[in-house]
């Protein structure tokens, strides 16, 4: 393991405490930091300053893409490449395409939601410096962890540690970068 520092992590005991602490970290002017929680915390998005997630747009794009591709496919298959008269019906009419294209729109949009979520979160990622920390395992249990990255311009091993302790963080530890 190299000596490079990934950041400093501090533990908190409750969602209320971590929310207040996050407000103070932001207030102190840090930009490269994150909060790790066992479940989504109401109000954290605003504190972190996140705008509406892009996942919805990815889903819409794939859903709409699937819808119109299937309309095109049906036109190509039944009205262009393989013309076959059934009950004197027209070769192509929009209503007949609706059901399959609607169903596959749902399929496309669902893949968009899952893959969009994974892509924007940069997953799958089978290794992460934080996952090597023993105490970090508690984040999926009952601890709430704030990590301030060493790549933050304001990061300073002593000052940042002081801040994390002042806002109530316990077990402040250095996270080593292993890349």
């Amino acid at each position: 393991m190299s000596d490079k520092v990934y950041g400093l992590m501090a533990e908190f005991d409750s969602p209320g405490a971590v929310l207040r602490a996050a407000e103070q970290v932001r207030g102190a002017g840090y930009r490269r930091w994150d909060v790790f929680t066992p479940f989504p915390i109401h109000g954290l998005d605003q504190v972190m300053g996140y705008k509406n997630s892009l996942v919805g747009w990815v889903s819409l794009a794939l859903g709409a893409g699937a819808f119109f591709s299937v309309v095109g496919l049906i036109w190509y298959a039944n009205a262009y490449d393989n013309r076959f008269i059934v009950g004197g019906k027209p070769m192509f009419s929009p209503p007949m395409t609706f059901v399959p294209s609607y169903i596959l729109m749902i399929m496309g949009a669902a893949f968009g939601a899952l893959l969009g979520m994974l892509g924007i979160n940069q997953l799958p990622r089978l290794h992460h410096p934080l996952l090597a920390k023993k105490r970090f395992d508690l984040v999926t249990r009952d601890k709430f962890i704030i990590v301030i990255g060493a790549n933050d311009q304001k990061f300073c091993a002593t000052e940042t540690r002081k801040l994390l302790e002042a806002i109530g963080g316990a077990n402040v530890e250095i996270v080593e970068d292993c890349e």
Partner: protein
Amino acid sequence: MSELANLEELKRHAPPADLRRAPVIEGNLGLGWLTDKLSAFAEGKVPLWWWIAFLPAAFAATVIFPVCLFYQVFTGVGVWGNNHPDMWGWDIVNFIWWVGVAHAGTLISAMLFLTRQHWRTTIGRMAEAMTVFAVAMAGLYPAIHVGRAWFDWFMFPIPNSNGMWPQFKSPLMWDVFAVNTYLMVSSLFWFMGMIPDFAVLRDRSTTRVRRVIFSFLAMGWTGSAWQWHNYEKAYVVLCGLCTLLVFTVSSIVGLDFCTAQIAGWHATIFPLYFVIGAVFCGFGMMLVLLTSLRKLCGLESFITRSHIDKVAKLTLVSGLLIDYIYLMEIFIAWYSGDPYERWVFGHRFFGHSYMVFGWMMIGINVCVTQLLWFKKVRSNLAWLFVIGVLINIGMWSERFVIVVGSLYQDFLPANWGVYHPTIWDVGLYVGTLGAFFMLYLLFVKFLPVIAISEVKGATPQGDPHHPLGGAKKGGHS
């Protein structure tokens, strides 16, 4: 007025104890305790009851199922009871039945999420698993019912040397897409919901094998605010999409019937009829699974009596809807003045040997369901288990009445015939039941059966604005 005084004021106006909402978790002892309790079953030893249930299911799934399947595929549809004029028999009855079982799972999980019902967090995962496995069983039937299963690829729009394309004007074609989409989307939804819980099991794992498996499944989930932010958005989008599927898949199965000109099928009510019937049947299966697994897996604090009471009430609501549809169907058959319609409906209840199924449908789906009006019944788990089993039998009878009851005597008396299932029909059904329960038991034992992270978020300790969640003076500053 200060925030503290505000809180006091709220407490003073709180409803009396017996009118308050039941808490989502009973005897809640904190987030760590929740994690321990909820992962305990997936991490513990395999209990005896599990083997007792698993072995017969696995026998049916790995012996009876493949034997019946391969014999039918190698020999032909003739091994079943299907024959002119009953070209659809148990295979289609069971197909609709399995699709039906699937529906309530999506309804419970997705629709109750969109309506922000916190009690769904404890039963949602079980419902989603039921959906995934039931759709897989359903999808099998049409695939082999076509007779030459090795030509199934004809149904997919693949460029081929025959120069042929599927005919998209046919609702049977729509079924292919509907069922496959349902299987894919419900699996995605189920899997995505489990990612944070795989991370829980990864971080708790004590052996290297478990750690490696759950690390792969969790895909590097760390639970950062950014990940949750995108995850929540994706989840709500998937819930919306799954809700659309609740209303489309069974409607399309219904369209298979109502576009045919057979008396008893050719009715505009069919898509809705099939959706409601599917949901009702699925709630029956949910009652069976919940009442039995809550005790067997030691989940009494999570799947509380209040949750089961709510599922029972939803069962009653869907039961009343299906009763209304039966009434309308019979009324329209009479009101249409069509002699064939009247004949078919008369014979569903007063003719030939199939009338027993007609009366089972009325006796169970209409009469037995009314028991759920009583709080005494809704709070008795044994009763609910029996009612759940009966609803599944009642809904199976309904599908038999619809499929066989309309086909065996059509417009021309010279065409009439009788339908009898063969041992291969029965065997395949037993095999799918076995496969379903085998998969379900594997899920219950090895995967997080309750959404751990969702449950934590639904507790007072998980709410940053609640005193137990660390809020100071009635709310965070």
